[in-house]
């Protein structure tokens, strides 16, 4: 299964879509295609119905959290110091905004092809978390997209029944996100260290035991 060939076939048949081939450096060789949210539905329908591809089996839908990363790099800049132009090292901080990613693994039952890996990314992790739902194309995405909504917070537009799957309805957080903090709880360990010891110290200073 040649991913470049599939990419060009999709680009030829779905006008306007923007695909990016993301190489996978691991020995598994499973490279993926990054879709843009606007044309994801059209690409999905084409992949499912095209006679040469027939990717009718959506096996796995995964959510991934990429938190915002701050990179600081030292840059040499020409600056005026005491009237003389000199090269000074300056620390520049760049923030790559975080995003939530949804990955689809597709297989073809008829042609015994796969896995074809598709990816979609949200704009950021707070306000811009909408992505089109591919449940109308592959029914197997129904429960898995609900789970991603529950645990990551991605809102899927066009999903027939988007509500929490695993956590209770009154739950507010999205627990699989990297910045989720567990509710505070007494922990007993025979040899406390790190986090448990820190929390035990905190409880002790706050008001002792019970």
């Amino acid at each position, binding site marked *: 299964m040649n991913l470049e060939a599939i990419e060009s076939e999709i680009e030829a048949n779905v006008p306007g879509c923007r695909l990016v081939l993301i190489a*996978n*450096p*691991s*020995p*598994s060789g*499973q490279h993926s295609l990054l879709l843009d949210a606007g044309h994801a539905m059209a690409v999905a329908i084409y992949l499912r119905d095209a006679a040469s591809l027939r990717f*009718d*089996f*959506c*096996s*796995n839908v*995964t959510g*991934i959290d990429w938190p915002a990363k701050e990179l600081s790099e030292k840059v040499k800049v020409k600056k005026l110091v005491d009237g003389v132009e000199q090269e000074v090292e300056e620390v520049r901080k760049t923030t790559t905004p975080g995003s939530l990613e949804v*990955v689809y*693994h597709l297989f073809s*039952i008829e042609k*015994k092809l796969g*896995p074809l*890996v598709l990816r979609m990314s949200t704009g950021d992790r707070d306000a811009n978390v909408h992505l089109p739902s591919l449940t109308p194309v*592959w*029914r*197997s*995405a*129904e*429960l*898995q997209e609900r789970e991603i909504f529950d645990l990551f917070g991605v809102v899927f537009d066009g999903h027939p029944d988007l509500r*929490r*799957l*695993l*956590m*209770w309805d009154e739950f507010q957080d999205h*627990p*699989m996100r990297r910045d989720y903090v567990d509710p505070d709880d007494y922990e007993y360990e025979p040899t406390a260290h790190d986090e448990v010891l820190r929390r035990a110290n905190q409880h002790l200073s706050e008001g002792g035991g019970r």
Partner: protein
Amino acid sequence: MITVAGPTAQSELDPLSETSKEQLLEIAMGPQHPSTHGVFRMNVVLDGEHVVRLKPVFGYLHRNHEKIAESETYLGSMPYTDRLDYMCPITNNWAYALAVEKLAGIQVPERAEYLRVIVGELTRLQNHACLIGFLMQDMGASGTPLMYAFREREKILDLFESLTGARMMCNYMRFGGCRADLPAGWLDRAKIVVAGFPGFLDEYEQLLVGNEILMDRTQEVGVLSRQLAVSAGISGPMARASGVDYDIRKVDHYSIYDRFAFRVPLGSHGDVYDRFMVRLLEMRESVGILEQAMRDIPAGPIVDPKTKIRGFRPKPGEAYGRIESPKGELGFYLISDGSPNPYRYRVRPPSLINLTVLEDLCVGRNVADVVAILGSIDIVLGEVDR
């Protein structure tokens, strides 16, 4: 008798319309229920005995396996995979080991592959036998088929215990092979167990296959069409009972399944009876694979000597590895960022995805059929909720 076929006829019994509201009964089956295979809840709206709507509620066994795996090393997650589908711990280990081997490019020696096939097929045997036992118990056979199934399961668990040290939760696979080699005499004992299995299957078939009550309660019940099965991502014996010719052992050519001659049973009706029969026939094929594997197993190392155990850090990248577990397609999707812990660890749970069509299969049927249909889907809550 009213037969309501499919969602289109629901508008006549729309639960929101005022006239029919008083006639409808909403009940919760589960989470504590003798027939729900664990802590699973279904909010069923009934019109008399007929199901109008069925909404499953998940999450009662959500144990945060994926989150815990992000803070564990790769090998540290192996015992947790045992506890996913707790009826088949060894195949869960295998799927995870396969995914990591794809991620890191690890090869598995011959003898280890044969060992994996042997314990994997033994697991499949006891899973299918127990599933049929549980299905019968749910339908009212009050434990007798289950007793026979557990008798065989105990023999297989004894084999696992002498090989791995644990009855369930074997934690047997390692990246690049298996944890322990066969003790002396294990293969002979296993051959005796496998040789006795066709006799057990004959006994089972004699009790069950022509049983009128079973046929009445399961034929034409919960019919799953081939098209819906493929679209909903159904895999495993449930898909094959609907005519989808897809067995990952034959399609992906993983491990050494290409060396064994075995057939893949397919159903044509897609009802509960077909799912039950497919599993019975698969057990016979598994016995055949076991006989071939135990005859041909070579000597050699059981783990790839080049794999690092301590400080195992796969290169950054991702991999999706899947196997044909007794429940369906069990896959693991791993993303590595070069550290000892996976960045993202995802389990593709066959039981959860097979439940996508539960409402479609149950609407219009009786409440009693819901139990039979749920039993035939073969769910284990550890996998559904992870």
